[in-house]
């Protein structure tokens, strides 16, 4: 007997469950451990921006300074955007634009509210976070879920968005590339 095929949007249901189970922002400011470094190196390799060292922000004010730093690497952001657009086109051909778009919007709405609460908890626990930074953290986390959702709906199982999501799932916040450093919070 042939097993029943997954419904077309099943990958999003699985991702929603993974997002619910993730340790969003739980390890911010904690010393980096071997697993964090391995995930960060996998993410850095997938970005393919040359050799990147791994750095760390230790508190919210330091994270805010880095995120507003004039020497942040737009190449990092552009690389992710280019990949997202390519994967989105692939996913749209597989699932239909309207159905895919609606499902992604509903997923990011659900997850966005959930991670916003987690970011607020982390900011409250650690102190010293600017009020808008909770929204920034929630924006970063829900963007990571959205990127991974697009990748999985495109049939990609080993994209750089998988390694980025693993960092968030482990309680970290990858702040991006500043100069030649990939910085984790």
């Amino acid at each position, binding site marked *: 007997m042939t097993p029943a095929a997954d419904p077309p949007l099943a990958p999003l249901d699985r991702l929603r469950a993974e997002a619910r189970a993730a340790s969003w922002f739980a390890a911010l400011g904690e010393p980096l451990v071997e697993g964090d470094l391995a995930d960060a190196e996998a993410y850095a390799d997938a970005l393919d921006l040359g050799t990147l060292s791994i750095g760390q922000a230790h508190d919210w004010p330091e994270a*805010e300074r880095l995120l*507003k*730093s004039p020497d*942040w690497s737009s190449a990092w952001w552009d690389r992710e955007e280019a990949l997202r657009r390519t994967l989105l086109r692939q996913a749209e051909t597989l699932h239909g634009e309207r159905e895919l778009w609606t499902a992604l919007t509903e997923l990011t709405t659900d997850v966005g509210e959930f991670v916003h609460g987690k970011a607020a908890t982390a900011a409250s626990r650690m102190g010293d976070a600017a009020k*808008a930074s909770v929204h*920034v953290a929630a*924006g*970063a986390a829900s*963007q990571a879920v959205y990127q991974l959702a697009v990748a999985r709906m495109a049939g990609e199982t080993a994209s750089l968005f998988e390694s980025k999501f693993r960092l968030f799932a482990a309680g970290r916040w990858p702040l991006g590339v500043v100069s030649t450093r990939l910085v984790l919070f």
Partner: protein
Amino acid sequence: MTQPIIVKTVEELKDAPEEYREAVGKLVISHAINELYGAQVFDEPAIAYAPTPYAKWLTCRVAMEEYGHHVRFKQLGVQMGIPEERMIPGTGKRPLSIFEFPLKTWEEFVAIKLLADLAEILQVEDLLHCTFHPLRNLARATMPEERFHAQFGEDFTAELVKTPEGKARLQAAVDEYFPYLPSFFGGSKSRNNEIFRKWNIKQRTNDEMRADYMTRATEVATKYGLTLPEVRQAA
């Protein structure tokens, strides 16, 4: 004189007069469509123009909240029996004129958050005492986020006006977009508005809301040394 009614649930709406049901349906459709237009035309494209990761992710969050408002209004509409197609742009209702101009710069986005989201706040405020409680509750749920979006506009306005070049670019964006905003409140002799007020779905006339908006928009612009261009009022 119409008997005042309170509709506490979507289920109870079935027993409300037809005019009442149609009126709340129109409002839900209008909000669902405009929230989606705003997210698609302004918020999502603005992520690319944002100058730093901090601003980009903040804009991501704003875009997702606007998409979220669309989802929530659409979910309410579906519960009310409104077909989903009627709550999605391009399927009937014409967009407001402001949505016909594609976003070109970060300063334009900041001007829109500062002034267009203030107009949105006034629209939502008018629903905070709506007699259709599911709509009232949704307005109350979205209000903190709408206020945050307007604050976003203020925060980045404060950044931009620190330099003469930034202030000039922002003033140019205000000059371009502001003239479209007063018409956001509808015509002075709107039949829809008359019906909304008759049933206490909304509280104020379009002209009252427009006048309040002009006062508040002038206050916030003046606070940052900006001026609002003259606009022709909607008839």
